């Protein structure tokens, strides 16, 4: 029995995914109503942020970012000088990957007396997202898990371990998160299953797509509306000769408006020879990506780069976006992506420059050894020696 199947058989019941999504959407609308009635009341704007984050993460509702931007703006007009406004502005900026702006707001929140624990929690997320102070982040994440044992804290730790290429530890931590979970909300469970899918399907040096697809399937059993899980599962299906299955997996997610759904659907249709339909979906994907990148360039720079380096078929645009992403957050993964695109685009200067940056920043870390860039460094050293 596979680990994913074993997990399924021995796991507890969670609230039906369709019920959970209805309740989330319903609560999201209600929280906005309450915000409109009394935007200053403690806790209401924070609840809106929480609901919108869940909506973006699990329902693939990318317009959540637009709504959050509106919320931050409203607060800046009605409650400009408060710590909570600065904290929410930092959260919203962070969600949009405007990390420098988020740090500025976080500093303001701290100056205005925001709770230390809240400031620190967000600061850790920013550092992790940007790949800065990772040793300190790791220590603090471990300590937080030791103290609280909450699933959110365990997933954050596991995500960091994966970033640091400590894949076995990451897998073990995700497993602990699942075993320790004692609630009925399906969101955290689906989230961990999804993360395990990404871990085994994309992050490890030699991806295990079968193992990954089982985790994505588990995620969808818990939460059928989980758009990201559908996209990643469809990608595996398409690449393993199951294009019709990929199409079936993606169709229910079309209403999310996520351009990655359109893109992967176009790929699945193209494989099946549905050329006209595939072209229409690809056009729609291109249009949606452009729209998203215009509104939220930093939030979707890496996804946009992946699209244009793939079926979007525009390496120049892909490299441009990948470089934007690297400038915004020079993580090893961002540098790997940009380097690969630079090589594919035939831009050797950019590739050399990116390799240099990666070596400078990450070359001494343990994680770098398993990076494809390590082999590039070796090759370039051998070339220089010859």
């Amino acid at each position: 029995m596979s680990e994913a199947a074993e997990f399924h058989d021995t796991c507890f019941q969670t609230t039906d995914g369709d019920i959970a999504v209805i309740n989330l959407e319903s609560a999201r609308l209600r929280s906005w109503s309450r915000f409109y009635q009394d935007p200053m009341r403690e806790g209401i704007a924070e609840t809106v942020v929480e609901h919108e984050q869940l909506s973006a993460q699990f329902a693939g509702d990318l317009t959540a970012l637009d709504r959050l931007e509106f919320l931050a703006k409203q607060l800046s007009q009605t409650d400009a000088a408060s710590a909570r406004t600065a904290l929410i502005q930092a959260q919203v900026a962070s969600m949009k990957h405007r990390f420098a702006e988020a740090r500025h707001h976080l500093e303001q929140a701290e100056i205005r007396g925001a709770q230390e624990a809240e400031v620190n929690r967000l600061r850790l997320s920013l550092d992790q997202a940007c790949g800065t102070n990772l040793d300190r982040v790791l220590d603090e994440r471990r300590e937080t898990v030791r103290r609280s044992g909450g699933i959110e804290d365990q997933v954050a730790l596991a995500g960091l371990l994966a970033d640091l290429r400590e894949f076995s530890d990451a897998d073990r931590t995700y497993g602990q998160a699942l075993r320790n979970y004692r609630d009925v909300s399906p969101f955290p469970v689906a989230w961990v299953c999804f993360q395990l899918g990404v871990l085994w399907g994309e992050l490890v040096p030699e991806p295990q797509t079968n193992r990954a697809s089982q985790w994505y399937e588990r995620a969808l059993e818990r939460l059928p509306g989980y758009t990201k899980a559908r996209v990643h599962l469809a990608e595996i299906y398409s690449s393993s000769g199951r294009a019709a299955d990929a199409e079936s997996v993606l169709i229910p997610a079309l209403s999310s408006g996520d351009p990655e759904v359109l893109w992967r659907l176009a790929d699945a249709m193209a494989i099946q020879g549905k050329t006209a339909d595939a072209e229409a979906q690809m056009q729609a994907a291109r249009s949606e990506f452009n729209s998203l990148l215009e509104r939220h360039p930093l939030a979707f720079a890496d996804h946009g780069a992946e699209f244009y380096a793939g079926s979007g078929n525009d390496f120049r645009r892909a490299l441009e976006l990948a470089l934007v992403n690297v400038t915004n957050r020079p993580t090893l993964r961002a540098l790997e992506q940009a380097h690969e695109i630079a090589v594919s685009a035939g831009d050797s200067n950019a590739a050399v420059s990116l390799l240099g940056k990666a070596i400078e920043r990450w070359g001494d870390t343990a994680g770098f050894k398993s990076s494809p860039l390590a082999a590039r460094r070796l090759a370039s050293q051998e070339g220089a020696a010859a």
Partner: protein
Amino acid sequence: MSDHIDGPRQIGDPSSDLTDLFAFISPENPASTVLAANVFPTCGADAVFSNAVDHSIVVRRAKVTGIGDATKFETSDPEIRFTCRFDTLERGAADQKPIQRGTCTLPDGQTLRFVTNDEKGASTPDGTFRIFAGMRSDPFILAWLFGGGMRKFQNLLFNDNVLCIAIEFETRRVLNPDNGSLFAVIAETVPRPRPAAFVGHEPPRLDWVGRPEQTNMRLNNEGVAGADDLRDLWNQQTPFGIDEKVRPLFLQRLKDSLVNWDMRDGKQDWTPSALAANANMFLDDFMLFDVAKPITDTSHLEIEKSTLNGQPYQTGGGRTVDADVIDVLLTWMVNRDREFLEGGTTKATKPGTKNFPYFAAPNTDLQSVVESVELGAAPERVWQLIGQFGGTWHPLIANIKLIGTGIGQLRVIETIDGKQIIERLDALDNSARSYRYTNIGGIPASDYTGVLEVKPKGVGSSVEWRSQFLPNGPGTLITKTIVATLFKTGLESLKSRF
């Protein structure tokens, strides 16, 4: 709030979060008792029950075994347990919401199927039991702010809804009061176990509630310096059987918290021994009700209070739908009933009703209308025209009169068909090219807030006009149509100008 959002674990799935518990004599039939439990605080218009949770209301026979500073209420088996489970959703008829059915397992083991939101409820064939489950207006009243003291305020739960389970039954047949008429009741939400799912683990409890505010006001009192949040630990305790190992921890917290509440008005009304007795009483957290005595809107906590005062109780205690439990509780904790403390209001959004299921129909949620138009002109040019609160650019407006200046000014609009609309400017930001206003009259809605905003879009601009309101009068659809027409007509007219 009574038991609303009383710990981080509930926030994961708010539909398992118990808000309140009620026990009262049926307004329709004095020979029947009603027990009710609400879940899902501030739920949205489409909220449904979790299918992964057992929702139980549990009654035990109780007796007074000590009075005064030795006050003690003891409960005994057997439990009288009502457990509701809910199904996954069934597709509704065309354009209708999905249907959810549930099953209530009754104390005698028989099961009763019901459909949620059916106001008639479902009854057993002999009429002994009747059940309703569905969305209702939240009857809870919290009209105080506690940050840095106690300040009267409007009801913080105004217009909120909850998911309600109300069970009515024949008192004599189910409770057999001849063997004693005093009872203790709790409600709990527990994950539904899967066969062989929890190897070595009992299913943990998600939430439970006895008397109001055990968690949010007594155990988690911000006025107690350096106090950890004990609410999750409390929620995982077994009702009627708090773990002996942690009882001292909870008791100490209750004492510390009650000392703090006593001094909120700057006066000490509780002697140390009386306060300790009060803490001991609250530690045994269940709601007492006596079916042989009257349960009224003011009888809540009377059984406990009289017993602590060394006197026989006079009422049936319990809790009715309209009981103002926060004020009753605060008065007791802060000044030991020396002077009644009344919050900013004593009325819930809607009062309870005299007919089954006794909880008022749900409140209507705020509605929103958003319309926008894209224009070829720069935002500054567009704002120059429409950014004046008293501007007459709208084709449906015949005349506008401004009263006052700046924020707070009123505009009295005369429409081309002779109607009058009055609106107040609440916020203006010329740099962001937006203003916010409130409708005072002329639109069949209440709590109406509108925002007009011009944003850059490519080389031109985008104008967005949005509003939020509670429909009031002719109905949601008609009001939305009126507002949408007003917005659309105005925005469309801009196309010919830019």
